[in-house]
Each structure stands twice: as structure tokens, then as C-alpha cells.
């Protein structure tokens, strides 16, 4: 008799704790956000996914049957593989350039005790505070044929011909590195700050110069941050649209500009949707990999 009432009591307590008024209230708070996400994000994604499963039957129209022909076309035609390839190479180049700039910058900012530290941090994050279109337009007077760089280049007699730094891959790389450097720098700063300065002092006291110490002690220990930052920048690069569009002047074709072409110009929704889904899958995979790596190193 006693044991049964105890069991019933336990269940009552369990139910009360799990669905307690407090927990229920918190759950209600999430509803508006979930609704917004559903309408603005999830539903369009589902719609896009569905579009990729219909065949293209002419400008702005698609057939009503479900088919995987779009995906088969994607996988079988070399053009799409080249598209992915070029976009990935762009990603690698942007990551490499970001690292070259970010490593010394992050190291300096992580270790400095200068009063200017906050100011420099602000300077680096500044690109993120500006609209992406304005940010890219700002490069035009600098990189253009009559821009600042060419003015110096020609007047200092460094070359006869003006440099072509816009409407091509170089311009896109410059624009993307400028925009994505903050991500790399912030990731690296937090990782380098966790490396105890005594390790570098120990290395220096044992006779290794500062550069050697950086290569043999700081870099290996910052590797998790370098990988995480690189994955982040790579993912953001392959999914970037505005910067390749503006800095590439319409002449640079990466996955995102191709999708825009298909959807806005050719009104080929199924094809655009297919490539979008492939890009989405790629980005999700890379993000999961990045998260996993972040967990194991932590």
C-alpha cells in the first residue's frame, strides 16, 4: 500500500517539474521567433527545394511532375563541376590571403597591452559595420583604372600599363578578404589569447628567437583556431554574392552569381533552385565539420 502511493507521488512530481508553469512560459516565448523563422526562412527553403524537383519548361514556368533530372544534369555536366571548382579555388585563395594578414595582426592584438588595442580592433571590424554594397563600392575609386592605386602605379613609374584590379577575380579576392578578415582575426585572437605567454617566454629563454617561437610554439597551438577560422571564411566565401557581383563587374562567375543569373535573368527557377540546394548542402556539411572540430579541440 505504501509503495504504491510512493510511486504515484513520484510520477506526480515528475509531471509537475517537466511541465511546470515556469517552463511552459519560457516555451511560449519562443513561439514568435519560431513563427518568423518558419515564414521567412524555412518555408522559402522548402519552396526552393520543391522547385528543384520540377523540370524547366520555359521562361518562368516549370512542369508539374517531380523529377530528379535537374540533379542528374548537375552531377553529369562538367560545367557545374568546374563552377564548384572555381568557386572552391576562390575560397582557398581568400582563406590563404586572410591568414597571411590575420596571423600577425591577431598575434599583435592578442599580446599587446597598448591603449590602442580597442581602436585597432574597431578598425578591423569596421567593414562589418558597413552595408556590403557600400563597402564594395568604396573600392571602386581605389582600384579603378583612374583610381588611387593606378595613380601611384603610373606616376611612380612602376609600370606603363594601368593595373586591372576590378571586374575580375583579383577584385573579388580583394573585396572578400577585406570583408572576411574580421572573422579570421576574431577567431585567431581568442585562440592565441588562450596560449599562456609563459610558453613563449620559456621558448625565448631557451634560445629561440621570436620568429622561431611563433612558428614552433604559437602556430601549432593555434591550429584549432586556424582551422576553425579557415572553415568559416571558406564557407562565407563560397556563399558570398554581393562582393563577387560588384567587384567582379558581372564578369566573374561563381556559384552565387550563376544562381542569380539563372533565377533573375533567365527565369530558370528549377536550375537555380538545384544549384542553390547543392550549395546549401555543401555549406551545411562544412558548418557541421567546423562545429565538430570546435568541440573536439575544446
Amino acid at each position, binding site marked *: 500500500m505504501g509503495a504504491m502511493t510512493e510511486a504515484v507521488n513520484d510520477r506526480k512530481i515528475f509531471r509537475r517539474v517537466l511541465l511546470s508553469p515556469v517552463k511552459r512560459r519560457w516555451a511560449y516565448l519562443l513561439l514568435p521567433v519560431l513563427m518568423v523563422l518558419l515564414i521567412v526562412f524555412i518555408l522559402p527553403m522548402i519552396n526552393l527545394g520543391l522547385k528543384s524537383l520540377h523540370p524547366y519548361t520555359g521562361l518562368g514556368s516549370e512542369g508539374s511532375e517531380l523529377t530528379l533530372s535537374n540533379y542528374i544534369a548537375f552531377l553529369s555536366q562538367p560545367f557545374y563541376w568546374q563552377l564548384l571548382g572555381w568557386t572552391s579555388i576562390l575560397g582557398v585563395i581568400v582563406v590563404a590571403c586572410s591568414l597571411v594578414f590575420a596571423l600577425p595582426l591577431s598575434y599583435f592584438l592578442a599580446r599587446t597591452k597598448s591603449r590602442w588595442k580597442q581602436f585597432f580592433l574597431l578598425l578591423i571590424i569596421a567593414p562589418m559595420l558597413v552595408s556590403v554594397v557600400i563597402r564594395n563600392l568604396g573600392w571602386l575609386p581605389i582600384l579603378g583604372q583612374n583610381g588611387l592605386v593606378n595613380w601611384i602605379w603610373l606616376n611612380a613609374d612602376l609600370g606603363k600599363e594601368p593595373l586591372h584590379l576590378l571586374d575580375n577575380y583579383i577584385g573579388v579576392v580583394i573585396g572578400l578578404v577585406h570583408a572576411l578578415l574580421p572573422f579570421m582575426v576574431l577567431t585567431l585572437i581568442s585562440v592565441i589569447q588562450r596560449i*599562456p605567454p*609563459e*610558453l613563449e*617566454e*620559456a*621558448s*625565448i*629563454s*631557451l*634560445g*629561440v*628567437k*621570436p620568429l*622561431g617561437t611563433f612558428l614552433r*610554439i604559437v602556430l*601549432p*597551438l593555434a591550429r584549432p583556431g586556424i582551422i576553425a577560422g579557415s572553415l568559416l571564411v571558406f564557407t562565407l566565401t563560397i556563399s558570398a554574392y554581393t562582393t563577387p557581383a560588384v567587384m567582379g563587374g558581372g564578369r566573374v562567375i561563381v556559384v552565387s552569381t550563376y544562381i542569380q543569373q539563372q533565377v533573375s535573368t533567365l527565369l530558370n527557377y528549377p536550375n537555380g533552385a538545384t544549384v542553390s540546394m547543392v550549395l546549401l548542402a555543401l555549406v551545411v556539411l562544412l558548418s557541421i565539420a567546423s562545429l565538430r572540430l570546435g568541440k573536439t579541440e575544446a
Partner: protein
Amino acid sequence: MSSEVRLVGVTKRYGDHIAVDNLSLTVQEGEFVTLLGASGSGKTTCLRIVAGFVQPDAGHVYMGPLDATGLPPYHRNTGMVFQQYALFPHMTVAENVLYGLKARRVPRQEMQERTSTALRLVHLEALAERYPAQLSGGQQQRVALARAVVIRPSILLLDEPLSALDLKLRSTLQSEIRHVQQRLGITTLFVTHDQGEALGISDRVAVMRGGKIIQLDTPVGLYQRPNCRYVANFVGMTNFLDVVIRGALASDNGTTHNYAIGLASNPTLVLEVSGVPQKFSEGERCLLCVRPESARISSEAKNCIPATVSKRTFSGDRWIIECVYAADQTIAVSLSGPRSAPGPGEQIDIAWEPNHGALLSNDDI
């Protein structure tokens, strides 16, 4: 390999704060000197100046005949052991120890031999392939020691290396460090705030305060002949008695003086103190320092004062008996060994030998 290290007139300022104030110190070749002081006394700054991580505003650092003041740390041939061990986590124990040898381009065969010898010296040759994360704190510190000595440094610098370890481990490692240092004859500079550690391990101890060395002496000298109240208080427990000089007594040798003194609180009581290195004048008020363990309960001695027990504390190996001998003047006696101790309220006589007291003039406070 090891050499004499000299600091001459070294000063370091941080804004308005003087961290090291015109400090001069000579560490003889093969000697073990400890910088002892509270935090903020300048001891760590001093060590880092010798290491080369801090540039002094004035003064010089000499390593042997070489003026090392302008040299960066990687040109100074110092071996350093840090409080948090600072072992490279991505390298094995052996690779950690090899690190300094690699930087010096030592031939491979010799590198291996010296590494094995160093690890054997700290009893860790079996753990050569482990990573620091797999070792205990004490083992990590021994690896750090091996790493610092394997390069045959001119001077070994230790920055509070035992503070991160627990008590039992501390004394074991203390003797290991001393053993390694004596075995290799390396000039050593050790920094700590723990006076017990300093007394147990050093050839000489420099007590530091406010960026200056207040007293530089052997551990025994520091303990028995503190030159001011701060040192007397910092190193071990002391009783301070207000006394007045009655007159000089005949001295046994030319260098020290003997005095008859009277308690300020009880002028009729005459006490003796001998072996005083300074000169005091008649009528001068000063402080007599008597260590609790120098005092005993007895009425048969040259120095004897009556007192009433106010409190007694037991700490395993000894009793501390606190007594009152005049209006709010206390004196503590330490009784060791298995024995009974007088309880509160008892009247006892406290005695000590004349050569077991130290006289401090009032302005040494």
C-alpha cells in the same frame, strides 16, 4: 659553464611606481641565492631583469665578464623555471627537454645523451615519451627543471616554482632542486614569498621590500640576527620587547658588544644581551627580539621574567604559550616535544640566554 652574476645599481620604474630601486647583488659562481619578499617587493621584476624580459632603467647586469644588460633573453644562456611549469603541451617530455639543445644546434648524438642524463637526474627517464598533460604537477616541474639545466646555463632562474604544488610535494621537490643544483654547480637565483622554503634551500637569502634588499645573509644569520623589525617579523615568529640600554658590559671579542638592558615596563628587572653587532648608547630605547623557541620556562637563567599565561595553542609538534608580562605586553614561548604545558592563568618564569636575543634600534622599524 656557470658563472658569477652581478646586478649593479639596477633600477626599474613603472610610471610613478619604483619596482626595483638601485639594487646591487652578486651571486657567486655555483651559489644558490633566494630573493624573498611579499608580492610587490620587486623580487620577480629583479629575476626578469636578469632573464632579459625586462630592461632596467638604470644599472647593469653582468654574467661573468660579459655585460648582458642590452642582450635579449635568447642570447643570454639562462635557464628558467616558471611557476606554471610552461611545458610545451604539443611536445613530449623528451622533445621539451631537447628544445633548447636544438636551438643551439647541438649534434644529434650529444643531444640524445644529454637529454637522457637530464631526465635521469630528475628520475623521469621512463616518462620520456609522455605528453605534459599526462604528468602530475610535480613531474611537470621536474621536466621543466631538466629542460632548464640541460642547456648548461650560466645561471638558473626559478620564479616561485613550487607555489603551484601542494605542501608535501613542495618539500620533496625543494630538496630535488637543491640536489640537482649542487650536483651540477649551477649559479642559481630563486624567487619565493615562502620564508620556510627560502631558509631551507639557499646559501644566502636576500629579503626584499619596496624594490630594495633589506638584508642579505645566510639563512641562520637572517633568522638569528635580523637587522630590522620587518625582517624579524617576516622570517619566522618573534617576540618584540621594549627595552632600555642600561650600560655596556665587557665583551668577549672585539667585534660584538654586550649590554645590560632593562624592560621599559619594569625598570627594576635587569637582563643581558650579548653578541650585538651594533653599538648602542646608554639610555637608548630599542627593541629586543627573542624567538619563541629560544625561550623556555625556568627560573634559573641570566634572563628571566615573570609572566602570566594567557593562551596556549597546540600544533602537533609543539605548544605555543602566550603570556602577559606587563600591561598589554605579551611574550610567546614555543615548547616542543611531548610534554605538558602550563594552562591559562598560571604564573611562570620565562627565561632565555643572553646570546639568543637580537637588539634592534627603534629607527630600524
